């Protein structure tokens, strides 16, 4: 056998992945070729080292810690509801409640005073050893009003995002319909410990393979003009959401604010849903300066954590503002 081919088959030979014929050829080559034999012994030694010393056991108490974490997740639905209520103005809640009441009464067949036509399913949030299915049902019930259509329709966002002046105190209701999951405590703690003046270069390596650049030549600078990208200090946000369609939502937001959603290299973005396996994306939202507050409010409304203070200088270029957004999908 050619030494080159033999050398490239040594790993498969160690794993017993060769046909009987090929394996016999390798055995013969090993007997004849000292260099190949040395290579084989070196590979075998590395594999033995890995197999002997690689496996390890989880730290003591690991299982209990995981189960405790899972237990603490069970009231997640209530947390979502509390956060939603805290972030929504009282007037908006009252208005929504009134609207629901009117719809309920108008839509009810027959005598509306006799009672509800449909009994709402009981929301049961058990503590301790609640069954997972029960937890999920409770969570779904609690977040029902917050359900996001997939993906968000353009007209919905268009209706939700004010075209002219953004309202800082009360971002649009429809945009807030994105279900908000609380970020894991560990992430929150780490993020909050960061230097708030820390900036990430725009051309930094992109995350995972969740966002694929289609056109790396199209930079924000070319799209919007202004200062060179390498001097940029964009706003930075980190969002942890249970919304697999969050990139589509951001895309819609970009369209309705006259901006662009780009990958973190400044190239065009391939849109995709996130999932549990490809659960991370890093994107740039570039909008006209007049829309910055609106975007800021929207992101904060989603529970995003900003790494720059609100008073920090947001300007990325003379004609636009960039938001560097890290999205982690946690279903």
């Amino acid at each position, binding site marked *: 056998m050619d030494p080159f081919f033999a050398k*490239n088959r*040594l*790993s*498969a030979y*160690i*794993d017993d*992945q060769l046909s009987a014929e090929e394996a016999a050829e390798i055995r013969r080559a090993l007997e004849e070729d000292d260099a190949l034999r040395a*290579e084989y012994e*070196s*590979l075998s*030694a*590395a*594999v*033995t*080292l*890995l*197999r*002997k*010393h*690689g*496996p*390890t*056991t*989880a*730290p003591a108490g*690991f*299982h209990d*810690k*995981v*189960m405790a*974490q*899972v237990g603490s*997740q069970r009231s997640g639905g209530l947390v979502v509801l509390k956060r939603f209520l805290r972030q929504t103005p009282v007037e908006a809640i009252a208005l929504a409640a009134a609207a629901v009441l009117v719809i309920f009464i108008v839509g009810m067949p027959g005598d509306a005073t006799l009672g509800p036509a449909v009994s709402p399913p009981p929301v049961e949030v058990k503590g301790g*050893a*609640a*069954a*997972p*299915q*029960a937890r*999920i049902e409770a969570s779904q019930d609690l977040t029902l009003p917050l359900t996001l259509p997939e993906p968000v329709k353009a007209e919905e966002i268009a209706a939700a995002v004010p075209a002219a002046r953004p309202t800082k105190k009360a971002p649009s209701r429809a945009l807030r319909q994105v279900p908000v999951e609380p970020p*894991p405590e*560990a992430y929150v703690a*780490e993020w909050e410990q*960061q230097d708030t003046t*820390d900036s*990430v270069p725009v051309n*930094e*390596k992109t*995350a*995972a393979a969740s966002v694929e650049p289609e056109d790396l030549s199209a930079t924000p600078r070319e799209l919007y003009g202004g200062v060179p990208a390498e001097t940029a200090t964009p706003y930075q946000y980190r969002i942890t959401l249970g919304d697999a369609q969050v990139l589509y939502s951001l895309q819609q937001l970009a369209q309705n604010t006259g901006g662009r959603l780009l990958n973190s290299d400044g190239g065009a973005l391939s849109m995709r849903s996130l999932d*549990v*396996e*490809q*659960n*991370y994306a890093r994107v740039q939202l570039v909008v006209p300066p007049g829309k910055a507050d609106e975007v800021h409010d929207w992101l904060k409304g989603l529970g995003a954590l900003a790494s720059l203070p609100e008073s920090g200088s947001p300007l990325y270029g003379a004609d636009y503002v960039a938001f560097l957004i*890290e999205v*982690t999908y*946690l*279903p």
Partner: protein
Amino acid sequence: MILALLGMALGPADDELVRRFRNGEVSAYSDLVMRYQDRVYAQCLRWMGDPRIAEEVAQDVFLAIYRALPRFRGESKVSTWIFRITVNHCKNRRLYRNRRKFDAHEPLEGVPKDEDGPSRQIPSQGPGTDQGSHRSEAEEILHESLARLDEEQRTIILLRDIQDLSYEEISEILDLPRGTVKSRLHRARAELARLVSRSIKREDVFE
């Protein structure tokens, strides 16, 4: 690890545990954690290099599994699915830490630093993240050599030689053709062998 493998062989199948969990048995999830905790932790530890971070990431992995299990479609083996989640969590965590400059240690003199790999930690005088763990010399060499592999090589070599997964399973986890897995694994092992042999003589490791 041996107990976990024994449990896997003698206990209910992974699919059965998933089915029971979806029917409301929390204990089935608990069994799944027990079954995979050593392997997931080992993957995280050998990938990240730091026991504290590895434990955090492994916990995140199991939390993600808990949340995603109700939607697990059974299109792949449970073990393959778990390792895919583990691999992605490790990569995400590494990217996050790199960006935040958590690992901005200076490399030791004369030691090239792999940008994506775990940093070589300079031992501190006080209690550190490795407190309580006493690595053997062989483990230390393994740790340092793995840290110098690039991310792709480290991932594939851990899945094969520590998790003992088949080429087909690795192919599914990494979404690569089987032939690519084979060639990349060979390159990864060759590089590891080079790093290991540079560090020590074989006799020292296998004494």
